[in-house]
C-alpha cells in the first residue's frame, strides 16, 4: 500500500471511539466520563470527514459542524449539572450518585 486511504482513517476513528467507550464504561469520575464522551464524538467527526473527503461531498463536513455545536452545548449543560450535584453531594464519583437507587 503506497498511500493512506479512507480505511486508515476509519481504523483511527474506531480506535478513538473504543478508547472513549472504555472510558465511559470503566471510569467512575464523572468529569472523566464527560471527557470520554467528547473523545467518542471526535472519533465520529474523524470518520465523517474521511468519508466526506472520500466521496467528494461536503455534507459530512457540514454535519461535523453541527456535531461540534451539539457537543459544546452538551458539555456546558453537563458540567453545570455536575457542579450542582457536587454542591449537594461533595463528590464527583458515580458510585456516590445513589439518590434514585432502590
Amino acid at each position, binding site marked *: 500500500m503506497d498511500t*493512506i*486511504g*479512507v*480505511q*486508515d482513517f*476509519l*481504523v*483511527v476513528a*474506531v480506535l478513538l*471511539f*473504543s*478508547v472513549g*467507550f*472504555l*472510558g465511559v*464504561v*470503566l*471510569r*467512575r*469520575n464523572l*468529569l*472523566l466520563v*464527560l*471527557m*470520554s464522551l*467528547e*473523545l467518542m464524538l*471526535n472519533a465520529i*467527526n*474523524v470518520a465523517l*470527514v*474521511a468519508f*466526506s*473527503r*472520500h*466521496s*467528494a*461531498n*461536503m*455534507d459530512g*463536513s*457540514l454535519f*461535523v*459542524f*453541527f456535531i*461540534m*455545536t*451539539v*457537543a*459544546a*452545548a452538551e*458539555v*456546558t*449543560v453537563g*458540567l*453545570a449539572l455536575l*457542579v*450542582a450535584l457536587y454542591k449537594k453531594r461533595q463528590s*464527583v*464519583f458515580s458510585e456516590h450518585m445513589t439518590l434514585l437507587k432502590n
Partner: protein
Amino acid sequence: MNLSLVDFLFYVFATISVGGGLAVILSRNPVTAAMFMILSLVGVASLFVLLEAFFLAVLQVLVYAGAVMVLFLFIIMLMDVGPESGKGTALSKKRLLSGFVAVLGVGFLTVLTLEYSGVAADSGANWQDVSEETRVEGANVVFSKSVKSFGYGLFTKYMLPLQVAGFLLLAAMVGVIVLSKKKKGESNDEDTEDSSLESSVPQPEEA
C-alpha cells in the same frame, strides 16, 4: 518500503490522537487527563488538516481545545477533586460486568470495521485523487478546501439545521444559567462566580 511525507504524518498524528485518548482514560488525576485530552484534540485537528478540511481543523482547535477544555479545567479546579483513590477499584461484580460489556463492544466494533472497511475502499479508488464518477449524484455541494463552500452549504442546504443549532445553543445557555443560579435562602458565596463563568461559554461558538 519508503513512506511518503503524508503517510508519515498520518501515522504520527494518529498515534498522538489515540495515545492521548488512552492517556485520558488511564490517568488518575483529572488535570492530567484534561491536558492529554487537549493533546488528543490537537491530533484530531491535524488529521483534519491531512484530510484537507482546514476550516474544521481551525474550528476544532478553537472550540474544543480553546473553549471546551478551558471550561473543563475551570470546573476541575473549582471542585478541587484530587486524584482518584485506588481503594475503590477493587473488582466488584458490577465493575467486572461493565468491563466485560466494554470489551465485547470494542471487539464488535473492531470486527465490524475490519469487515466493512474493504467495502468502503472498493467504492472509490483513492482519497487523494477523486475522479468525477465517484462523486455522489444529487449532492449540490462538492467537497472543497475553501471556507466559502462551507458557508454556502450551511446557508442553502442546511439552513434549518443551522437555525436549530443556534436555538440549541440559546437553550443550553439559558439552561446553564438556571441550573447555576443561586436559590433563594441559600447563602453560598461561591455561587455567583461560577454562574457568570459558565453562562459566558456558549457565546463564542455562535459567532
